[in-house]
Structure formats: structure tokens, C-alpha cells
């Protein structure tokens, strides 16, 4: 079944509110609030309301996955997310350096 083309919206332009982020991660809003208050998950603040961008969504989903798969506590899940982000950054640098050296 084929449908007409639908418009995708950059999350970073409209951002997600607390309820939307929680639903996208299949967790209750309190799960998100606890981790924001603990400094494990960042957010933007707009008129006193929490707003979340792409990077926050990706990080939150990684933390949910780690907590569920390994019964990890929130600090360990945040640490795993930190390390994965670091690995991604290093991979990009290695990739770029490889191109430069081959270039």
C-alpha cells in the first residue's frame, strides 16, 4: 500500500516536550524528569518548559535500552551513553583522518 509523500520535520527545529519525549522512549514522564534533575540527561528550557532535541532523544533511548537490557541503574546507563557518544566522535575523527592520509 503506497501513500502520498509526507513531510518530515527536523526535531531540532520544533523540539519535543516532556510528554512527547517520554512517549517516544516508551517511558513515563517521571523517568525523564528524574534523569534531567540528576544531570544525566540534558534539555533546553523554554518559558519554564523542558524541550528536547535530536541528541537528547537519541541519548534517552540509549539510556532506556541499557537500563532495560542490563537492569542498569541510571548512572551506569548515562555512563554507557557517554562512552557511546565518545566512540562515535572518535570514529568520525578516524574516518576523517583516514581520508586525509589517503587523499
Amino acid at each position: 500500500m503506497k501513500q502520498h509523500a509526507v513531510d518530515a520535520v527536523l526535531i531540532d527545529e520544533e523540539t519535543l516536550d516532556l510528554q512527547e519525549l517520554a512517549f517516544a522512549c516508551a517511558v513515563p514522564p517521571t523517568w525523564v524528569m528524574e534523569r534531567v534533575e540528576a544531570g544525566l540527561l540534558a534539555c533546553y528550557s523554554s518559558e519554564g518548559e523542558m524541550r528536547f532535541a535530536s541528541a537528547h532523544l537519541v541519548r534517552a533511548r540509549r539510556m532506556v535500552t541499557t537500563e532495560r537490557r542490563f537492569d542498569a541503574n541510571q548512572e551506569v546507563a548515562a555512563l554507557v551513553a557517554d562512552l557511546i557518544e565518545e566512540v562515535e566522535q572518535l570514529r568520525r575523527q578516524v574516518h576523517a583522518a583516514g581520508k586525509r592520509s589517503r587523499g
Partner: protein
Amino acid sequence: MEFKEYYKTLGVGQTASADEIKKAYRGLARKYHPDVSKETDASARMAEVNEAYAVLSDPQKRAAFDKLAQRRAAGQDFQPPPGWDAGFDFSNTGSPASDDGDFSDFFNALFGRAARAHRGSGDGGGARAQMRGGDQHARISINLADAYHGATRSLALREARLDGSGNIVNAERVLDVRIPKGVKEGQSIRLRGQGSPGFNGGPAGDLYLDVEFEPDARYRIEGRDVTQTVPVTPWEAALGASIEVPTPAGHVEVKVPAGSTNGRKLRLKGRGIPGDPAGDLYLELELSSPSATTEKEREVYRTMAREFSSFNPREQTGGQR
């Protein structure tokens, strides 16, 4: 429909304890973690492992699965017999990965949200309760030109739906997605109402797409900044020149400053990936020297050798002339 051998997937026996199942699952979850695994099929294997664990870690689902496995005729196409789930309740059983879209037809027909709604035991509601469909997540690959100009991409999504007769069917839905220009690698884009369908008139969930760029050896991309290598002749670099360069933003006329050396970067402000602010485009000069095939050409190189006799490109590495 293919019957899933969940015990084999986790590498445990049918009499495995809950702890043994959990231990096996965690080992495989480390091995196939999509963010770190070097296995080529890590995402697919992780989905299989998640699905097996979603069933075997839940006493109700495991018992129902064991009962089905006993009644199954080997080698035959599988269809759940009527009343197979009599006496079991799956309504409040979570799973480590609850995206039914990632799971097989087999799982969705037995334990998926559509199956539960069909049995009238939907998540947290009665048989007639409206239920919003779940959000779905997927990845989409685009190229750099798409990021500059926007693009339409077709995406095939699998999902469990209830047909007109109330039967659960797994359907493939092809969605044409208009991707806005200015998207960066690693960003997520959202399609409202394109996730899993709702039940009993509830709204559909949203679809989130994680954007990744197709590898392209011509470019290095950092955020919205793009770097590309531009070959130039030694005389263009030494004397300066006006050259035309094909870039993702289109052909641009660039002035190469006199006295440029290999590796010099020219910045074209705002010519990177569009956005607010737009990224910059960096052109990295790469000197390309022609081979001398005629006596006249060789004489030009001899003249250069005499005129640049003090130049030693290996000086910094201790090389001798």
C-alpha cells in the same frame, strides 16, 4: 508464518532457569549492541535476541510459547490454533524492547499490541478503550546533496494491523518521505501520525527517523561544515588562479591565492549544509603535478630543480636531499 525457536536464539535449553535466560540474554545484548558491535548483521540479530527474551523472560508468555511449541507439527507452516492462549494473560507484561515493529510476524501475531487489542486486553485499558499507537523508530540514509537540497525517499515499514474482519495481518507500508534540506548526520526527523496505528479509534503514533549519511569519499562532514579536496596545479597554487569547482552547493568560481601550498584550506562561508546558521564549505587544496613525458617538459622540471635547489620537502622528517 515461520515458527521462532526462541530457546535456540538465546542458546539455552528449554529447562533453563530465569537467571540462565537473563545471563544468556545479557551476553548476546553486549555482543550485538548496534552501537559497538562489529558484526555486520548486529541490528537484525539484536532484534531477534530482544524478541526471544521478550517471550522467555516473561512467565506468562513463556508458558504459552512452550504450550504452542509442544503442539507444533515440525516442518509445517505455523498458524496459531484457535484458543491457543486460553488461560494466559499478556496484558501487563512489558518487554526490554517494546517496538513491535522490530519483531517478527510470529511475535506480533501472538503477543503484539494488535494481538492484545484484538483479544480485548489492550495496554492499560478495557476492550473498548482507545489506545494511541506506539511511536516507531527507524534509520534513513541520505547523501550530502539531499542535505543541501532536501529529497524524497521511499521507506518500507512493516507493521501489524487488524484487517476488516478483525484478523491480525502483517502488512508492508511504503512511505514517501519528504526530507527537509539542512538535515545533519545524527539528527532525528519526525513524521507525525506515521507510527503504529492506534486501536479502537485511537490516534496513530509518530515515526522518528534517525538520519545517517551515505559514505562519500569526496567529503568530510562535521556538523554542518563540509570539507572537500580540490586538485590544483603547482602553477595555480604558486601564481594564483581563478578556478571552477563543483561542490554540493553547485559550481562555484574560486580564487586560489598566489603562494598557496598543499593542504591550504579556503573557506566559503555559508556554503556548507544549509541551516540557521548554515555551515561553511572548506576547499582543501591538493597539489597535482603532471608527469613529464616530453623533453621540453622534463626541461621545465630541471629548471625548477635548479631554481628551488634549497627546497627539501623531507626536511622536517630528517630526510636528505
